[in-house]
Structures are given as C-alpha cells and as structure tokens.
C-alpha cells in the first residue's frame, strides 16, 4: 500500500489539536456535599477495571481521535497496487509478420494468438480495447473501443500482412497511445527481447506473449538467378534452423508456365546452411524455387526471381555539376563518379550520366545525357512545358527556370520544352537528354530535382516488363505510363487483387509471390518476397514487465480504499453522537 498525497500529512495537526485540548482540559470542579454515600455507590460500577473505566470516561476523546486520524488517512490518498484486471484500457499489439504463419500443431501462431486475444477480450468485457497491428506503419485497428461485439469482430478480422514486424515502431506507437497511463499492453509475437523495454514507462504494464517452443523450419534463405551465355544459372541457399538432420527436395519451376525445370534432393545437418546450384536452365523471365520438406513454416519454402536488368549502379561524369551526383546519392543508388574511360568499361552494367554525346551511339543500354559537350547554349526564357510522359508523373518541372538551352537532336522525341525550344528529349533507344547545364537553371532548388533523377533512373535501368521486387505491403511509387487508366494487380493465375489510381499510391500485395501488373494495357511482373528476417521463426519465453502504477492513476487509488474508510468514519461519528447524547455536554 502507498500514499498518493503524503503532503496531506499536515492535516495531522487537527487530531493533535484535539489531543492537546484533552491535555489542557479542566478536569473536575470541586463541590462539597453532605455525603458521598450515593455517589460512591454510583461510581463503583465503573471501577471494575481501571482500563475499562479509562476507556469509558474518555470514550468521546478516543472516538474523536479515531475519526480524525481516519480522515487524515483518507486525505493521504491510500491505494492498493492494482492487479492487472483493473486496467481500464487494454492494448493488443498483434504481430502480423510472415513468421507468425508458422504452424504450431494444427493452427498457425497467428491463429493461436487470435484465440488468446479473444479470451483476454472476453475476460475483460466492458473495458476499453485498442488493437494495433505491426509493420512498417503500425495500424490502429480499433481505438479505445468498449463495445464487445465491435472488439470481437475486429479481432476476428485480423489478418497477416507478411511484412516485417518493426516492433520498435509499434512500441513507440503504443507509448504515444498510452501516454495517460493505466494501460495494459499485450504483445503477441514470436519473440521480443526484454531490452526494448529499457525505458520503463510508468503506468503501463507490458505483457509479451511469445512462441515458447522452437519450431521446425528449413528455409530458402537466398535464391539467385543469373543469365549467362550458357543459359540461366540458379543458386539456392538453404538454412536449417533445427538441430536435427533434415532432408527434402528442391524444385525449380518456370512460374509463368508452371513447368518443372529441374529438381534436386538434399540432406542438411542441424543448424547449418548449404548452397545448391542449378546450371544450364533455359532462358526464363520468372523462376520459382520450391522446397519440399516437412517443416512448420511453409511460407519461406518458396522463392521467386524475375530476370531482367536490375542494375542500381550509376556512374556520373566528373565534368557534370556536383549536385547531379548528390541527387543520385539522395535517391539511394550506388553512385560513383568516373572519367570517360571508366564509363566506357562499365557502360553495360551501370547507368551512365554524362554530357558526352558519343555515348548515345555506343553500347546497348540507354544513358542520361545532361548538356552537350559538342555545342554551346543559346539564351532562352519562358515557361517549361511538359508532354504527358511517365517521367513527369512524380517530378513536376514546370516551375523550373531555364536560362540557356543546347541545340536539340533531330528526330528525337521532345518531352519538355521552353518557349517552343526542346528542353528534354528522348531518343528512340530510350536515352533521356536534358539540353541544358544544371548551372544554367534553378532546378536544384526545386523538390522535383531528385525526383526527376529517380524517375529517369527507374526508367532507364528497369526492364520494361518487370515492375520490381517488393516486400509485403511495401509502399513504393511506380512509374506508370501516366495514362488516365488505373493500375490493376492480378496474381499469376489472373486473380484480381487490387486497383490503384496512379503509380504514386501503389502498395505491394501482402502475400509473397509473383504478380501481374496491368498498366495502360501493358503487362508487367512484380514479385513480393519475404524479408530475410521473416524467414526465421524465433522463440522465447513469455513475460510481463511493469505494473499499472500509481502516480498516473489517481482515480483508481481513491476509489479503491478511500471510500471504504469513510464508512467507519461515519460510524465513529454516529457512536460519538450517541456517547454525547448519553453523557450530556461537558461543561
């Protein structure tokens, strides 16, 4: 037990005052009477026990003292530490990552957790519930909802999102939700380290429900496919998370046709990795590796690869403006600056950003040309006009001021112009040509500057019929044709998944697999792959930390004890009144 307002101790003055009053009270007035014969007799009864006599004589004093002391006690705000059931607000943090799909018996970990949540929610009917699902962006399913039907409905509709749980984000999110304290937070995950709760919050009780038994799991940790001159080669890295020897089969399939290309049996020691390679496969665009074995987590037994030019390396010409390199660095590409010779060597593997016009005619992959080294600029003024092109769906360049332009290339498609003169052109090969120097514009001051380079890099490096590799529910802008039609997503079996109005609002599907993207009549492929951390099913003991405390929880404390003591006080006052009534008023 503790006290909320120890400062209330000053009220102890009141009982002390009464005590002093009784100390200094005039005791008896003397009177001489004929005989104490009868008085003596009448008092003899009270002399039975000196203690009782004292009590009788001072009953009023004791009662007053008791009542006052109890009142002081109440003012101190006593409380009992609440047990968890008294929390008025329960928060469930539900891990919806792929690892929760691991089977434990007949049900997945996720379904087990759902059951547990149901039970807890039913046990605490009437209190408030908040449900948060994990992920890169933690989602609030319901907030401070106390309607039982809504809560149970919401729990029932929880689904896996397959994305990494990002527990730290959820934790911060919950902390901000539970700022007022008195909250019971339950985590449902496979494993959560205690160290994340280092900064213990007052008034929050953390309970972590984990997967407490190790599950059998063999996963395809890595799956790589490369096209070589001899055909397609594939490498599969297997990882056994179990301590015993496991055996199984690896199948390699053409995902588009469903045709089985090859298969290989393997046997793997406990807690070890192995590499399996497959050579001389036919040319493919989408490959699937399937691990056939008997384990508890099946999601990571499949892996997908889309073949295509996936280079993310950029070589920026040394002669270009420094900010161009910075812009590429800002969008997260591997940027090196290089001379003409270096660019010559690497031009097949990397995206070239240069002002050397000769690269327009050399090599096979398109380049980004900024300025022309074979010409000089003419002065120009006016607004930038852009054509309807995928390049400008994200980066709006209309506001950019351009003071000079190089002469344009003949027969190239002009996609942006300044007062009628070409500003940005595209070659038939796909090269993007910016007919100015960065120094002649105020472009770096605009937010469209890095965005334009990102769009350009996306457009130049990505194979046209591959939309990209995504993690589950990844939010990533797609470069679309810019047409008025929306993007539609289908599975490889042509099942409809979702529609997005434009490439900027695209969110990858949740379930791992290969998907088709229909954009303006053009079909592209995309894969959704598990993050490597999700291929591991962790386990650990459940635990709980912290208590619903105290400082943040005034109402609870008062309610628990304070009013209980008021009743004895009232009773004491009643007895006092009765004693007073029988004895008469002193003096």
């Amino acid at each position, binding site marked *: 037990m503790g006290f909320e307002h120890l400062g209330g101790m000053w009220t102890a003055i009141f009982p002390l005052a009464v005590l002093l009053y009784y100390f200094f009270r005039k*005791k*008896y*007035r*003397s*009177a*001489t*009477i*004929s*005989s*104490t*014969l*009868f*008085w*003596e*007799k*009448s*008092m003899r009864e009270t002399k039975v026990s000196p203690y009782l006599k004292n009590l009788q*004589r001072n009953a009023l004093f004791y009662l007053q003292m008791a009542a006052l002391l109890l009142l002081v006690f109440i003012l101190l705000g006593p409380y009992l530490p609440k047990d968890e059931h008294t929390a008025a607000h329960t928060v469930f943090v539900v891990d919806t990552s792929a690892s929760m799909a691991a089977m434990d018996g007949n049900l997945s970990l996720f379904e087990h957790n759902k059951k547990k949540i149901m039970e807890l929610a039913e046990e605490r009917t009437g209190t408030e519930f908040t449900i948060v699902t994990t992920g890169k962006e933690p989602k609030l399913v319901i907030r401070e909802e106390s309607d039982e039907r809504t809560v149970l409905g919401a729990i029932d509709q929880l689904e896996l999102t397959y994305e990494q749980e990002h527990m730290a984000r959820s934790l911060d999110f919950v902390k901000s939700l539970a700022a007022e304290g008195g909250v019971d937070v339950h985590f449902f995950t496979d494993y959560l380290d205690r160290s994340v709760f280092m900064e213990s919050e007052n008034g929050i009780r953390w309970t972590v429900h984990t997967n407490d038994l190790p599950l059998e799991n063999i996963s395809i940790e890595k799956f790589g496919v490369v096209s070589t001159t001899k055909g397609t080669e594939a490498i599969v890295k297997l990882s056994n998370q179990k301590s015993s020897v496991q055996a199984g089969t690896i199948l390699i399939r053409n995902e588009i046709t469903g045709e089985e290309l090859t298969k290989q049996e393997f046997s793997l020691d406990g807690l070890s990795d192995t590499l399996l390679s497959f050579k001389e496969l036919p040319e493919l665009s989408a490959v699937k590796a399937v691990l056939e074995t008997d384990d508890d987590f099946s999601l990571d037994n499949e892996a997908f690869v889309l073949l295509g030019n996936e280079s993310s390396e950029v070589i920026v010409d040394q002669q270009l403006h420094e900010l161009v390199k910075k812009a590429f660095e800002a969008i997260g590409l591997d940027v090196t600056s290089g001379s003409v010779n270096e660019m010559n060597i690497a031009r097949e593997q990397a995206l070239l950003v240069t002002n050397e016009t000769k690269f327009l005619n050399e090599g096979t992959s398109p380049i980004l040309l900024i300025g022309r080294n074979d010409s000089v600029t003419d002065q120009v003024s006016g607004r930038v006009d852009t054509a309807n092109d995928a390049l400008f769906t994200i980066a709006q360049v209309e506001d950019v001021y351009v003071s000079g332009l190089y002469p344009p290339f003949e027969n190239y498609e002009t996609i942006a112009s300044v007062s009628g003169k070409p500003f940005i052109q595209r070659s038939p090969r796909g090269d993007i040509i910016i007919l100015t120097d960065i120094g002649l514009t105020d472009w770096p001051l605009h937010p469209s500057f890095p965005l334009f380079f990102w769009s350009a890099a996306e457009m130049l490096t990505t194979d046209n019929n591959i939309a990209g590799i995504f993690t589950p529910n990844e939010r990533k802008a797609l470069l679309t044709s810019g047409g008025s039609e929306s993007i539609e997503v289908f599975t490889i079996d042509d099942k409809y998944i979702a529609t997005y109005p434009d490439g900027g609002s695209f969110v990858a599907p949740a379930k791992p697999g290969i998907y088709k993207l229909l954009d303006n009549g053009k079909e592209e492929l995309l894969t959704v792959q598990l993050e490597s951390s999700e291929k591991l099913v962790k386990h650990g003991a459940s635990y709980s930390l912290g208590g619903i405390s105290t400082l943040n929880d005034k109402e609870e404390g008062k309610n628990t004890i304070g009013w209980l003591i008021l009743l004895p006080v009232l009773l004491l006052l009643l007895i006092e009144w009765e004693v007073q009534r*029988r*004895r*008469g008023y*002193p*003096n």
Partner: protein
Amino acid sequence: MTEELFPDRLTKRLGALSISTRSRRLGQHKGTHRSSKTGTSLDFSDFREYHPGDDLRHIDWNVFARTDKPFIKQFLDEQEMRIHILLDSTKSMGTDGKWKFARQLAIGLGQVALKSGDTVSFSTWTAEQNYFFRKKGVLHRASFKKFISKLEQPASDTGFAEQALRHIPKAVTVLFIITDGLEELRKWETLFKRMPGICKDIRLITVHSPAEELPLYEGDMRLIDVENEAAVEVSMTRRVMQDYSEKKNRHEAELRALANKFGIQLMRTEVSDGAMDVFTRQMRHSGWLR
C-alpha cells in the same frame, strides 16, 4: 440575631398541639397525659370487683346498694411524659439549610412537649462537648429555645448512629431523633437493634435538602464528603444522576424498612416544606401530634 430561629408567632400556632403516644411507659410524675393506668384524675375509667386489699375509699357505694356486691370505681390516671430530642450534629447536617430546619423542628417539638407539662430533654454533641438540656414546664419554653438557638454550626465528624446511644437518657417515653440519615445502613441497624430496650416509642425524623434531592451539578465534578473528606470524581450525565437518585431512594426505602422492623416510626421531612408545615400537617397526619 437579626432573624430569630423560631419566632414567637410559630410558638403560638403550636399552642393547640400535644404529643400523642400509645406508649405505656410514662414518667413517674404527675402530668397532663392520660395514662391507661388507673389513677387519680377526674375521668372515670371503669368498674371492677372489689378484691381484698383494695382501698375501701374507692368502693362505689351506689353500685353496692343496687347489686349487693362491692365494686371499685376506677379513674384514669394523668401522667407526665418524658420526651427526649436527639439532634444529629454531624457535619453533614450543616449543609444546605438542614441545620436551621433541624433546630426549628427540635424547638417546635420541645415547646409542644413543655407546654403539655412534660419533661423535655435534649441532647447533642460535638467532638469536644456534649450538650444536654432537661426541663419541665411551660415556663422553660424560652430557655429551651435559647439553648438550641445558641448551638453552633455542627462540627462533629464521628458517625451519628454509632454515638447516638450514649446520649439517650433512661426512661424516655417518646424519643425524637432528628437526623439526615446519611449513614450506612448497617450502622443504623446496630443502633436500631438496641433502641427498643431504651424506649418503646421512637420517632425518627429524616431531614432532606433540595440540593440532595436534585443535585444541579453539570460536567465533571469532584464531590467531597463534608465529613470524611473522601472525594469522588463524577462526570455528570443523566445516567449518573439517575443512578444517584435510585441509590438514594433505595437507601431511604431500606432505612424505612429497617426502622419498621424494629418498631421505629420514620418521618421524612424536607427543608423546603418549612418547619411549620411539618408540625401542623405532616406530624398530625401521622398521628404524632394531636
């Protein structure tokens, strides 16, 4: 003395009263009270047959002439009474006007008795001195009054009941005891046991003051006994007051029962009633005075 203890007008109002008693034990001297014995008064009592040895002068010759049998004519005797008044002079009598009232009673009784020509004796005592007075005859009324008026405030602190017996003279017809009765019952009992041997007609007058009847104390009191100075601390409550009254009433009832057991008459008087009311009303009602 600014105010006389017993003004003469009171004496006048007592003029018609006399003490009545059924006691056969009267004084040896001639008095005014008719005795049940035959004697020499003028009042005829009875006839009885002559037996040898009787005084021939008392034979009623008229009756002898009619019946041929000698009859003795008897007359009632008139004898004096010996009245003794014993006044309790313990300190408890000194409170709340009881002393004055008690002395008034003593004077009144004495005067009634003296007027009837009886022998009146009075006794009381203090620790140092015993007071005794004995006179007969109307003429001594004034000196009796003076004697009692001169008595000082009571100062005896020994128990009255224990001492009383020593202060009662022999051969008393009627014994008046004026006291407040505030002593333990067993002391009264020892006294009462021995009383009938001294006197057949004992009359106990208990004197009570209003302050004793209904004490007006409030709050916490230290009550000090005037006689033995024992202190009792009492918180005055209705309950305590009630207990007090009950104890007091029980004590009085027991004292009365004890007195009845030994053939002692008891009269309860209150200071507030006034002495004259006691004489003219209460004593006549109970047949003490006539």
